[in-house]
């Protein structure tokens, strides 16, 4: 509890916490939605916001508010899959490369540097263009995870590299600790804050890339996500026709989501890094 009280002294954490709770509630409300998000013309089309349709209705005949609840839920699912799977890859690569060193390290770091340098956005375009007909939430999440681990693997590797030189490593090895348990029990706790903050950044990255791919029409447009909602709004010229409530709903939701995720990761990593914590207490 004390951790929370300390964190709540940071306005950025308070903001992120409130926004994320709001967005989670929104995502959970999708289970109570009176409409099926994949059907068209369930409500009258192109109605402005009113007491009955809180955020109006779109040109496909969907209620924008309820559509947004599904969009938030699906975007979160995609990004969570992407974030968690890529974390597993990053941890494995980072720890194996950092602990083994030598040729293993060089090969793994060559691959991750290669991925880091190549404009992977274009590889995503190529992949999703060819996979468009098979695309679903889980597959999109996996695809995003496969190419977004290199930077984080490098960070984790650098932590392990410095831990390997510490005194307690020798003590552990000499007292008969196996490699696996040494890495998992002794090293992983040191890397946890880093893994957590990269997870949050990765989730934001995945949501952003999904929006971009959806804008290019490279995902399944019948599944509502923040990206596909925006895609439909642009396709139907919602800006030109003055249907601001349709365009602004996904744009404002994603703006808040991105800022909240970033601020959360900054405030937590500042809290976990003792040097900046001392600075804040002193200030």
């Amino acid at each position, binding site marked *: 509890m004390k951790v929370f009280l300390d964190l709540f002294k940071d306005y950025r954490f308070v903001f992120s916490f409130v926004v994320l709770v709001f967005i989670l509630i929104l995502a959970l409300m999708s289970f109570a939605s009176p409409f099926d998000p994949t059907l068209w013309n369930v409500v009258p089309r192109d109605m402005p916001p009113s007491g009955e349709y809180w955020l109006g209705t779109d040109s496909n005949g969907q209620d924008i508010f309820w559509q947004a609840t599904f969009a938030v839920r699906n975007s979160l699912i995609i990004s969570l899959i992407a974030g968690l799977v890529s974390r597993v890859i990053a941890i494995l690569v980072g720890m194996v490369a950092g602990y083994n060193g030598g040729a293993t390290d060089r090969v793994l770091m060559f691959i991750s540097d290669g991925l880091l*340098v*190549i404009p992977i*956005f274009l590889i995503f*375009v190529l992949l999703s*263009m060819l996979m468009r007909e098979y695309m679903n939430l889980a597959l999109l999440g996996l695809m995003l995870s496969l190419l977004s681990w290199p930077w984080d693997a490098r960070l984790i590797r650098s932590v392990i590299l410095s831990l390997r030189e510490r005194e307690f490593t020798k003590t552990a090895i000499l007292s008969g600790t196996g490699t696996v348990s040494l890495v998992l029990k002794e090293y992983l706790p040191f890397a946890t804050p880093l893994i957590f903050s990269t997870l949050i950044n990765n989730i934001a990255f995945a949501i952003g890339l999904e929006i971009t791919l959806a804008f*290019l029409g490279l995902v399944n447009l019948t599944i509502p996500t923040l990206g596909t909602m925006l895609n439909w709004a642009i396709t139907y010229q919602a800006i030109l026709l003055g249907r601001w409530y349709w365009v602004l709903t996904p*744009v404002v939701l994603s703006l808040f989501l*991105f800022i909240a995720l970033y601020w959360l990761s900054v405030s937590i990593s500042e809290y976990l890094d003792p040097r900046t914590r001392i600075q804040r207490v002193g200030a």
Partner: protein
Amino acid sequence: MTFLKRYLIPRLIQYVLVIWLGITAVFLIPRVLPSDPVMAMIGMMRARGSTLEPGAMDDIIADLTEMYGLEGSWLDQYWAFWGRLFQGDFGVSFFNFPARVNDLIGNAMPWTLGLLLTTTILTTVFGNIIGGLAGYYSKKPWARTLDAIAMVIRPLPYYIFAFALILVFGWVVRWFPITGGASIGAQPALTWPYIKDVLWHAFLPGLSLTLLGGAVTFQTMKLLVQNVNAESFVQYAKLSGVTEGRIVSKYVIRNALLPQITGLALSLGQIFSGALITEIVYGYPGVGMLLYNSIIRADYNLIMGITIFSIVGITTAILIVDLTYPLFDPRVRYY
């Protein structure tokens, strides 16, 4: 000589290997995925409503297989693929037939290069100077304000930020054009009105790229400067009465700049992707727009060409940044 052996040759080998890795990935992706580009193409033709005789269909399949380079075993295809690349031949575009992919990319490249070079230089110069000053004077109100602004801009993805700027400047206050690289019908010429027109159109895309990239450079530079500030040689310089301007420019910023150069090299790929996305949002006639059109029309050759061009271009740019590193850090000598 040792410079060659110790640094240049390993770095060049790495450069060649990364390009090989990237281009091999581009070769493999369509071949390991379950979808068949030839049948997808025929599906598109059918969807447009063209009916075909059974015999004509076989001819088309054979032609497309040849054009995509899908004849023979994978190994044969791979050799033929590299053979064409070394001749600098990316084939013809399907939907701008018979325009060559090389020419299409060549026409779009100056727009992208212009936008990218200008914004990268602006970002690097201003991001580092302002970030450095804000790090040195981190307690001043203006530094805190800039920091707060960067905290808001930094997390936004290129697409959302560009779109938000369009909504504000293109629709709400209509100061800038929202699409195109120049006014329709303007004749390309080296005259002031044309240049002014191009700059006016480039303003919003350039602004969104500069602000996004600048926020990142600003934040990292501020952090780096704050770390250098705590070093004892800075304290010593202060106590010895070195003027503040000299400390900031010669001692602090110069030392903090070094990791920034490495950072720039590593993020060039992302900056390039971001520029493509920004171009698409603003309808800017560069490589990004070409990519967008080729996605809509499933112009497979063109996408391959753009991807390969970009991989080679980005890795070369990074190599150049890496090789200029000793110019900034006199301690690094490659011999």
